[in-house]
C-alpha cells in the first residue's frame, strides 16, 4: 500500500509533462493558421519608392506571390535577402515587400546597395497592414495563391529548407 503512494509524485509529474508537451506541438501550427485560408486584407498605403503613389490590394496582381515583411533594422532580413534574390533571379515567383516600421531613405539605399528582390515594396510606417496580417515582427513571409488567398505563413528567415518544406508545394497547384 505504501509503495503505491510513492509512485504518485512520478505519475502526477508525467501527466504534467504530457500536458506541456501537447502545448508545444499545439503552438507550433497555431501561429501559422491565424490568417491562413483567408483573403489577403485590403489596404491603402504608399509605395516605398514613391511617397505619392498609393498602393492597394489590386496592385498585388502577379499571383501566386510571396509577401515578405522586412526592415533595415532587422538583421535576420539581411540573412534571408540572398535567398529572396535567388528566387527573383530564377523567376520562381513574384515577391512583394512590406517595409515595416522603417526609415524610407535607409530602406531605399539598402535595396540599391544589396539588390531589390521585390516587384515593389509597400511602405507601412505605422504597421497598419502589418496589424491586419497579424505580423509579429520582421522577417515574416506569406504565400498568396492565384486566387488571392493566403495559404501559408512563416515567421523567421526563409531559406532553401523552409521554402521546400512550407512553400514549394503551393506553387504547383
Amino acid at each position: 500500500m505504501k509503495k503505491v503512494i510513492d509512485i504518485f509524485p512520478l505519475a502526477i509529474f508525467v501527466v504534467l509533462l504530457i500536458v506541456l508537451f501537447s502545448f508545444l506541438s499545439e503552438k507550433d501550427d497555431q501561429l501559422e493558421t491565424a490568417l491562413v485560408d483567408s483573403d489577403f486584407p485590403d489596404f491603402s498605403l504608399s509605395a516605398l519608392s514613391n511617397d505619392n503613389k498609393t498602393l492597394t490590394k489590386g496592385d498585388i496582381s502577379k499571383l501566386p506571390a510571396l509577401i515578405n515583411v522586412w526592415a533595415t533594422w532587422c538583421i535576420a532580413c539581411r540573412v534571408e535577402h540572398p535567398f529572396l534574390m535567388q528566387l527573383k533571379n530564377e523567376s520562381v515567383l513574384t515577391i512583394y515587400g512590406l517595409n515595416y516600421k522603417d526609415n524610407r531613405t535607409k530602406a531605399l539605399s539598402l535595396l540599391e546597395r544589396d539588390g531589390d528582390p521585390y516587384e515593389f515594396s509597400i511602405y507601412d510606417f505605422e504597421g497598419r497592414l502589418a496589424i491586419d496580417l497579424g505580423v509579429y515582427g520582421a522577417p515574416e513571409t506569406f504565400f498568396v495563391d492565384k486566387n488571392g488567398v493566403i495559404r501559408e505563413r512563416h515567421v523567421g528567415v526563409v531559406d532553401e529548407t523552409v521554402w521546400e518544406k512550407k512553400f514549394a508545394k503551393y506553387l504547383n497547384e
Partner: protein
Amino acid sequence: MIPEIGHIILISHLVLSFMGGILPLAAIYSKNDFLSIPTKKLSVFLFFLILVPFLVLIYSFLIDDFSVAYVSQNSNINLPNYYKLAATWGAHEGSLLLWILAMNGWLIAFMFFNNSKDKDYISTVFSISCQVIFAFSLFTLFTSNPFERILPIPPLSGADLNPSLQDIAFTVHPPLLYFGYSGLMIPFAISVAAMLFSKDTKEWASNSRPWTLMSCSFLTLGIALGSWWAYYELGWGGWWFWDPVENAAFIPWLLSVALFHSLIASENRGVFGKWSILLSIFAFATSLLGTFLVRSGILTSVHAFALDPERGLFILGILAFFIIGSLFIYSIKDFENETTPSYELTSKEFGFLLNNLLLVVLAVSILFGTIFPLIYEAITDGKQISVGAPYFEVILFPFALALGLLQGFALYLSWGTSSSFKFLPRLLIESVSVFLLILIILFILFDNLHLTSFATIFLSSWILMGTLQINKNKNLNYWRFLRKRAAVTFAHSGMAILTLGVAVVSSYSIEKEIILAPDDSVEFGNQTILFKNTEDIMGPNYFSKSATMSFSDGSNFSDVLTEKRTYSPSGQLTTEAGIKTEIFQDLYISMGDNLEADIWSFKVQIKPFIRWIWLGALMIAIGSLLAGIKRVRKT
C-alpha cells in the same frame, strides 16, 4: 577568431562536464579506483571552462563585433558600454551562459564548504550536478550557440538591446534570479544522493539547508528587483502583475521557502524526510519549468524571449530526464526502515507541517492559474482567456492570511510536545496596540482610514510582535542574539514590513489622468502638480521628449522629469516615469500622449508605503542569506 576560441572552450566544457557526470558514479559503483577523479579540482576547472566563454562574449560586445549574430541582435554601436556589458545576458543565449556559470559557482562552493565527511556521497552530489550542468551546456551549444557568426558580410551596426532593458536594475536583476534558480540544483542533487546512499534524514538535511537558504535569498532579491524595475520602467506604477514569468519565479520561491522550513524540522528532529526530498525535487523542477514557460514561447508576456519550439522541446527533455529519473528512484526506494519520531498536535513539527501545506497548495494554485489559460485554449479550440490578477489575488489572500497568523506564534511552539499558549494574551495585546498605532499614523498621514486594509495591517503587526517578543523571552545577550536569532528576526520582520507595504499601497493608492498645458497646474491629493515645460533631449542612442513637473505640498517644491523616449536603432518607444520618493509615499507621474501643440496627458499616482514592500523583501533576503552563510561555516 576570438569568438571561435570561446566556442571551442565551451565545447570542452561540455565534454568535461559529461565526464564529471559519469566517472565518479562509475568509480563508486564499480569500486574501481582507476576511474575516480579529483572532484574538487574538476569543479574549479569546469568553472574556468565556462568563465572564459562568458568573458569572450562580453569582450565581443565591448569591441562591437557584429559578426557575432548574438551581439548584432542585442547591441549597437551607440549603446553605452555599461549596457553592452549587461546586454551579454540580455537575451536567451547569453543568459544561458550566465546560468551555467552560476551553477558552476554553486558547485565549487559546495565542493569546498560542505559539512560531510562521506566522500562517495559528496562525489555523487558532484556527479549529479555535473549531469545538470552538462545538459545545460548541451542545450546551449545545440540550440542557442551565442558564438554563431554572420559571415561573410557582418552588419555595420546591431539591432540594439531592448530599450526597456537598458536600465540599472535590469542589469543585476537577471543574474540574481539565475543565481537563485541555479542554486536549487544543489539541494536537488543532495536529495537524490541521499536516496542513493540511504542517508539519515538529520544528516542530509543539515547538508542541504545552507544551499536552500542561500538560493532562496537570491531568488528573493531577484524577484524584488524585477518588481522594482517593472514599477518605474514599465510606466504603469504597478509592482506585481501576475505575469506568467513573474509567477514562474514566484513558484520556485514558494517551494524553496517551504523546503528550508521543512529542512529545519528534518535536521533537528529527523521528521519529514520523504517530504523534504520531494520538495527538493519539485523546487528544482519548477525552476526548470519556469525556464521552459518563458523560452519556449508558449506563454506571451513582457518578458517574451525569441519564440522557438525546438528550445522548448529541449528544456522539456532536460526536465523529463532529471525529474522522472529522481522521482523514479523515489518511487522504488524503500523508506520503511526510516523511523519517524512522533509529535503532538500543537508542537513545532506540526507548525512546520502546516506552513508547508499552505505554501505548497498556494504554489500549486498559482501554477494552475499560470497554465490554465493554455489548457483552456487547447480545449476550446483557440479561445484565449486570461485569468489574471483577480484570480491570483482571490487565491493568495486566504493563504497569506493563514500563513501570517501561523507565522506570528510559530516561533513560540516547542519541539515534540504540546506547546503552552501562555504567551498568547500578551502577544495579542501587544499586536493590537501596534495595530492601533499604525492606524493612527496612517490617519495623520492620509486623513483617511480604509476598512479593507485592517485585516492585513493587523496581520503585519501580529507577525512583527510575534517575531520581536520571542527574543525577549530568551534572555540573550547582544552577541548571542546576533549569532542565534538575528537571521530569523530579520527575515520574519521583513515579512511583516512587506505585508504592511502591500496592505497600505493596495488600499491607499490614488491615481488620475490629467491633461495639462505648460505652466498649468492641478490639485491632486494634498499635492499641487505644475507642468513647467517640455524639452528635447538627445541621449546616446535615443531621442527623448521630456517634461519637467513640479510637486508641491504647500511648503516643499520638488521637480521630477518624465520622458517619452524613442530609441533610434529599433524605433521602440519607452516611457520613463518621474518619481519623487518620500519615506511614506512615492509621487509617480508618467507622460502620456501629445494631444495638441504643447498639451500633454499625464498619469499621476500617489503610492503610499510602496518602498516598504522592497525593504521587506530585502530584509527577507538578508535574513535567509545570513542563515545560510552561518551554516556553511560549520564545516
